[in-house]
């Protein structure tokens, strides 16, 4: 009997020691591996004996893998979760596979806008990790060479493009083969040209996609295509990165996450950023910003104590400083020190003061059901319009027909 008790005790000790101090984290972001190495080293230097096992999976397989693993009890302690609203995360919360962290972690360093994207029924599910800022990134050397200024109106943007084109420079590089970049382009133009108030009205059903203002955005984008590189419908975002980094084009409609790649490809590139300019100077320009995701605690957690410690650290400005230093992304936590880089500083300023509170692309209600404005309307619709097969009015009708099928405020409008 004594032997049996001893055996059980040894086994229990082995099981406990196998998990003690180790925290497993899954993500779709391969670029974050170094972040966790640095955090592990920092925590160890402070006497917290935590080993972080970070694994990144292909973004296209990530969600299915997390779903399956959490349901079968084989998931990690912590995962990177997608933002809310969105079916993928909500369903995991509803089924108890993500655990609320509000009682364990101090979230005072996060603005409410960020917390809204991880809050469900008054409970917070995850520590927001990064925000993305999209807009127009431009080659400052070309702007200096041709004495151009950052445009404050749409017409000035077109005038700048005209000057660049006349001088043999491709004004814009557009990745027409990847439809998501076109939807992003539409969304970032929309927040400035239409403005958040119009998008709020759309969300509440006070207007709809057939509004001439929405068609006007379609038309402006369609008219702008004469300033895109030849054959833009066959280019990918990888082509865009190379072309922009090596100075073959002057401007791109993109997100701040591209900056690290451009700098890696060409450390000498001189990049500037501006929000898509509105129609007139009396309109305030807005930037499309969104929370990339959160670091969430799963129901499969085996090392609760250390996982909570990790999450607590993720909610500090110190985490943000490490994160920004490695990834050149804007951390969601405020009070961090960013690398001394004007583009990052400007993106942060824009996020703080010009983020559109209402949007219709990532993070909006219009992408949460099928047919989705993202997947089923703007992705094929923008390509079709740029190919000359769909009119700007046709794109508006396509949007209204699709969303009015399931979104009550826009039904029968």
């Amino acid at each position: 009997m004594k032997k049996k008790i001893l055996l059980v005790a040894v086994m229990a000790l082995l099981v406990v020691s196998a998990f003690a101090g180790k925290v497993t984290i899954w993500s779709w972001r391969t670029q974050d591996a170094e972040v966790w190495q640095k955090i592990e080293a920092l925590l160890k230097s402070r006497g917290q004996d935590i080993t972080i096992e970070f694994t990144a999976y292909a973004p296209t397989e990530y969600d299915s893998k997390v779903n399956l693993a959490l349901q079968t009890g084989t998931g990690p302690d912590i995962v990177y979760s997608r933002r809310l609203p969105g079916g993928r995360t909500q369903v995991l919360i509803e089924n108890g596979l993500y655990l609320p962290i509000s009682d364990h972690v101090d979230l005072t360093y996060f603005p409410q806008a960020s917390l809204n994207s991880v809050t469900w029924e008054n409970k917070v599910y995850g520590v927001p990790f990064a925000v993305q800022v999209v807009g127009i990134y431009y080659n400052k050397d070309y702007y200096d060479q041709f004495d151009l200024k950052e445009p404050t109106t749409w017409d000035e943007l077109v005038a700048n493009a005209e000057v660049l084109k006349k001088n043999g420079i491709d004004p814009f590089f557009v990745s027409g083969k990847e439809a998501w970049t076109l939807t992003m382009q539409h969304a970032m133009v929309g927040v400035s040209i239409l403005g958040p108030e119009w998008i709020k009205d759309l969300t509440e059903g006070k207007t709809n996609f057939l509004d001439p203002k929405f068609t006007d955005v379609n038309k402006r984008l369609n008219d702008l295509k004469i300033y895109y590189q030849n054959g833009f419908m066959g280019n990918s975002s990888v082509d865009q990165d190379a072309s922009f980094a090596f100075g073959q084009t002057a401007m791109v409609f993109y997100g701040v996450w591209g900056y690290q790649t451009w700098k890696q490809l060409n450390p000498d590139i001189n990049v500037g950023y501006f929000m898509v300019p509105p129609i007139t100077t009396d309109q305030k320009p807005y930037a499309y910003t969104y929370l990339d995701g959160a670091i969430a605690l799963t129901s499969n957690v085996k090392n609760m104590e250390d996982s909570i410690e990790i999450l607590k650290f993720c909610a500090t400005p110190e985490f943000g400083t490490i994160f920004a230093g490695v990834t050149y992304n804007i951390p969601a936590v405020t009070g961090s020190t960013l690398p001394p880089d004007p583009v990052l500083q400007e993106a942060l300023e824009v996020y703080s003061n010009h983020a559109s509170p209402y949007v219709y692309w990532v993070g909006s209600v219009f992408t949460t059901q099928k047919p989705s404005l993202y997947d089923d309307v703007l992705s094929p619709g923008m390509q079709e319009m740029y190919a000359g097969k769909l009119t700007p009015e046709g794109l508006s009708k396509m949007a209204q027909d699709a969303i009015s099928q399931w979104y009550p405020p826009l039904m029968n409008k």
Partner: protein
Amino acid sequence: MSIKLRYLLVFIIPAMLLYTVFIIYPLFDSLILSFFSWPGVGSRTFVGFKNFQTLFTGSYAKELFNAFLHNVYFFLLLILLELGLGFLIALMLASKIKGAGVFRVITYIPNMIPLVLVGFMWGLFLNPQVGLVNQLLKLVGLGGLAQPWLGLENTALTTIILVNVWRNLGFYVLVILAAILDISPDLIEAAYIDGANNWKITWRIIFPLTFSTFRTLAILLFIWSFNIFDTVYALTGVQAGPYRSTDVLGTLFYRTAFGGLGSGAVDMGLGASVTVFIFMIVMPVSILYVYLVEKRQRSA
């Protein structure tokens, strides 16, 4: 010689178990799932025929028909190119030309390249500005033909099919070559002695004697054409652009089941109804294939 049942079972049961777990169960589960709405987690909601209604007459009807036609086009072009071109190359290799062995290896090499790499390579080759294809066209004075091959509605799907042919042709060449080499040389020699020329030997002797191989390959091509996903995914992505001009049932399934881009809604039930549709197309042809193989074995 009679074999005792228990010995038979020892050999059959492991295979049957594996087949049931990995083929029969997923098949029936997909069929059942197509009557439910399920985001991949939690309980399933029974919706009856709603998924099929959405697919055939609702918001996805146009995309379903469009994707189906693309699968048909895929099949027709693959038959023409992979079997037609495969036959010609196999004939050339069978005629024992100098360096036939090297050509055979060269033809088969693309088949060994992982598809992800194929997608990456051809993405570079087909780059509109600096890609190899357009640069070669310019080099030979055909710069007017240079275009964004994967970015135009009229060329994108055909381009993907050609990449598919480039990758898989070697397999068809090898199979057809094996069938040609299986023909007794006496038959061909006798035909030459009787005064037949190469053309007549090809069409009156070689083709009829390898026809059963063509029939088998054609049926396999049909099944593969309706299950195609990877090549399209690697070259134009899950959005199957431009504006769904390269969409096939496989990519439509992916978008409906896994939600496509961003935080879009996930509905495994709707995706399962697409797979049921694919199954209904492929199953009769598969049965025909099994019947023909059985018939061939009986007559052999």
